[in-house]
């Protein structure tokens, strides 16, 4: 019969139309500004800088190594290294970024900066309502605007942040143990300076170079 195919299709649309009143799964849209879907945990948009503790300048994890600046595909990161050093979370004096700007109008949210960062210092945010009336200055974020606390990181990516914290704690424990062993060795050496045992040259702080993380 001519028109049978059309009627079949119309039956399908009718089923969907009626279904949208009955089944919640068929209602696939929400009224956005009033209603919001809970964000997916892994979601990402723009990078931010993580700091530990309460003070963003003292707790900044970034050591201005500039790897992210080099690897960033659209080159939206600009870093200036500091002249002096400040102690990092392990107490080792490190450089810090005197200037760290990200132009989020250029950033393409690819997460490569997060992947290549050996210090877990840069992570992806989930804030997406970023419209501003200032086209250039408003989208060029400096290090103060980029700095966000570790608590914020835990809030937006709980699983990932817990993994990162565990990894950092492990490293810290390892470094402390190494430092302690070195200090002990040094103490033993100074206690018995005449022994011929070849003690390795004491190192006070082991270098904190971590294998590149494969995943952020």
């Amino acid at each position, binding site marked *: 019969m001519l028109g049978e195919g*059309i009627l*079949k299709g119309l039956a*399908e649309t009718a089923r969907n139309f009626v279904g949208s009143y009955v089944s919640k799964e068929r209602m696939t849209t929400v009224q956005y500004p009033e209603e919001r879907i809970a964000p997916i945990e892994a979601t990402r948009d723009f990078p931010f800088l993580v700091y530990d503790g309460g003070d963003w300048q003292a707790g900044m994890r970034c050591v201005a190594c500039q790897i992210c600046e080099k690897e960033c*595909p659209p080159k939206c990161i600009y870093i200036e290294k500091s002249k002096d050093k400040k102690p990092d979370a392990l107490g080792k004096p490190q450089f810090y970024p005197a200037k760290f700007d990200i132009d989020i109008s250029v950033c393409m*949210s690819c*997460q*490569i900066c997060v992947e290549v960062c050996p210090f877990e210092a840069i992570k992806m945010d989930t804030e997406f309502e970023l419209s501003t009336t200032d086209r250039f200055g408003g989208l060029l974020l400096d290090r103060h605007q980029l700095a966000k606390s570790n608590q914020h990181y835990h809030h937006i990516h709980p699983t990932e942040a817990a993994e990162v914290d565990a990894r950092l704690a492990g490293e810290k424990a390892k470094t402390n143990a190494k430092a302690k062993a070195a200090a002990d060795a040094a103490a033993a050496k100074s206690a018995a300076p005449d022994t011929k045992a070849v003690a390795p040259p004491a190192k006070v702080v082991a270098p904190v170079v971590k294998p*590149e993380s*494969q*995943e952020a």
Partner: protein
Amino acid sequence: MTLSHLLHEKKPAGWNRPPVMEPDGDAELLEVAMGPHHPSTHGVFRMDVALDGERVIRLKPVFGYLHRNHEKLAEGMTYLGSMPFTDRLDYICSLTNNWAYALAVEKLTGQEVPERAEYLRVILGELTRIVNHSSSIGFLAQEMGASGTPLMYAFREREKILDLFESLTGSRMMCNYMRFGGCRVDASPAWLDAASKVVTGLPGFADEFEQLLGSNEILMARCQGVGILRPELAINAGITGPMLRASGVNYDIRKVDHYGIYDRFNFRVPLGDHWDVYDRFMIRLLELRESIKIVEQALKDIPAGPIMDSKAKIRGFRPKPGEAYGRIEGPKGELGFYLISDGGPNPYRYRVRPPSLINLTILEDMCLGSNVADVVLIFGSVDIVLGEVDR
């Protein structure tokens, strides 16, 4: 019809030229520029059409409006740096683009991919194919005047798959997920469960889609016998993907090139025998069903294990001088990346073989002699994304 049979058949001279169309009377030809802002052009693309009444006499495709210098940019960038840019080639299927590029670099550096990563690639690649085919059918129906309904049904399912992508890779469309020697993040058991749940619903969606469109008289009247592409021309023009298989040529890179782990899955390759727009529509629908089957098998068999080659470096590596061509069966056809290394940290030459561009080259041959309204339809049945055509 086999490939060699088609290629060795004797043919008259000039058989592969588009037929020369002559206007009927002594009326003047009307030249129409369809695009670059025509609603049917899927972006910015222009067709300069010469018309005699309703009949197409000449058609000249004009592209390049979306040129973004992808290949040259990649030559000045590390291998890793180009990965997020490949997402932006065919922005509907970012994961298959990632896959093809990762495959090319893996061939160049000789990296192994762990089994779990291969399975994840297959799952994501086939989900991408489902996304692409369902939305391309939706767009085709929209170009016939079915404004919205089939496309919205397709987008409803696409949204579920994109949510899966987002919860695994962090982004809905610009996934940037695959790496040289594996994948970036591992899929949790919860994600695999969610994926199985979505995949269980997909055959129902395919049935619904077929019920909605498959036997629709208007669709059949508009599509059947329109835009015929002969298999010999398709082969000679280098057409690949659903376009080629709709022309009845059995050529699927998943079957012939044995890349990844496709040998382990049981699936069939649908072929068309009328070579027209309706065949292309139907092939996509059937391939969508086959893809669902592959994802089901892969989700069932996925082993535990690492997702990254332990020796793999994601940055700061310098491949030995040499060249490599990695290709996969993308949703639109053969997607290949050709790389030449001179031993430096970035490729000496980086070339994309985009299926969309090459499938577009026979547009004139398919359109000549048909009506203007059918041009829109034939163009839609090629299934292109301008981001990949212009790069």
